[in-house]
């Protein structure tokens, strides 16, 4: 079992979700995040002083997938989230020792 985590541009969430759905992934968990990287933030002015806000809003997804699907899922996410402009984000994969569905106690692939 693998955990795919993706940090993407917020407005791409809907496309990524559809793409994953089409691929057959049935669930995911989403959190608001903000990212720091090459992409520049924005500037605010307050009483004549200028402040640079370096953090950029991002959306963070977690998708638990079977080992066999992991490469495809990463691919699907990367394709759907890509705009080609700086700040598109990262996708990474961790190994998962165990997964349980809370409702039923099912484990492993059955828990997805």
């Amino acid at each position: 079992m693998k955990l795919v985590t993706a940090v993407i541009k917020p407005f791409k969430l809907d496309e990524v979700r559809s793409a994953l759905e089409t691929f057959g992934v049935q669930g995911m968990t989403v959190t608001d995040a903000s990212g720091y990287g090459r992409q520049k933030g924005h500037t605010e002015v307050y009483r004549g002083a200028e402040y640079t806000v370096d953090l950029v809003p991002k959306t963070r997804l977690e998708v638990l997938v079977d080992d066999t699907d992991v490469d495809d899922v990463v691919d699907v996410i990367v394709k759907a989230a890509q705009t080609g402009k700086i700040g598109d984000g990262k996708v990474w994969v961790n190994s998962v020792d165990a997964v349980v569905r809370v409702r039923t106690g099912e484990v492993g692939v059955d828990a997805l």
Partner: protein
Amino acid sequence: MPELSAGDTAWILTSAALVLLMTPGLAFFYGGMVRAKAVLNMLMMCFLALAIVSVLWVLYGYSMAYDESVGGLVGGFSLAGLTNIGPDDLAGTIPVFADVGFQAVFAIITVALIAGAIAERATFRGWAIFVVLWATIVYFPVAHWVWGDGGWIGEFGAIDFAGGTAVHINAGAAALALAIVIGPRLGWRRDPMKPHNLPFVLLGAGLLWFGWFGFNAGSAYAADGIASSAWVTTMTATAAAILGWLLVDVVRDQKTTALGAASGAIAGLVAITPATGFVSPVGSIVIGLLAGVVCALAVGLKYRFGYDDSLDVVAVHLVGGLVGTLLIGFLANETYTGDAALRGLFYGGGIELLGRQAVAAGAVMLYSFAVAFILGLIIHRTVGFRVSEDAEVGGIDLASHAEAAYEITTAAGPSSSHAAVSQAAKERSVQA
């Protein structure tokens, strides 16, 4: 025969607008106190009361309250639809229409006040029906009792300058009845159920206070000395009640709270309402201080007796209304009442005034409670007065109005909600 006074009319029209603003003010006072998932429903309960009662008032409410008395109990229907009234007709020194407008907004706010007791869980349909029935069966007649020509309470000699009995005791008793009928919110006593937006509570309190100058000083029906002294006591009683409530806060919790300040202000406004044109400024400070302290303590009653009066309508309006109505029996001041018979115990008056005040308060309380209880029960058993558990837990705003109050995204920070983006917009029939 009195002539039109432009000055008095200007003041009553202004006052009427001020009192109308009280209902949106109340909506925010209440709306800030509920949880975020129920704020729209709270606002909507108030606005619905505004919409329905305005129309009823013109159709037959004004007539039931102010038409010729039928046995001191209710007015007739000859003024229904206001079709007999023209712009040149006068009521004293002001046009009848100014009176119609000014009295309308009292009816509206009284009904809206009740909503706080059943916040976060009442069906919107049930509330709509209750508004129509309670206004018709309770408010219009009770307004007649107190202020109508020949109404029995007025005849009996109890006094109520701006609505301690007709408005606050009346609404507070109905609120108690409904809170009992529809039962506590899920998780009551277990979950904190904290106000979701305390600045809104204070905004509402500020607008209410502002509007209350129309409520109280407008009830002089003239721009004169009594209107002016009512203005002053409306300021001072409120101020004193804030201090009174904060005092309880400090003694009990070692902290002053914003919710306490806002609630104290309303408690003071409620208590001074019946007395505003009958007492001196110093008298009003006494009333305010007592109301602040007593109402702050009265909040505990709901825990002791086990009814979930969610936003403390009973503690503030019923109890506050009683405080003010009864204190008239002590503090009524001949300089202000202009009548030696209307003197409180502290000014050499007898016990009779206090007795009459108590009878009036008791009568309104019992009548309103009983009718509201029966109406509530009937609605509950028929169309339903309580939303489903899922709706209550998931939030009545979504369940009853299919809306979420806030969608606050800041481009600046990480709290940007992606909900908007992830929605699949399925336009159904947006065309007319």
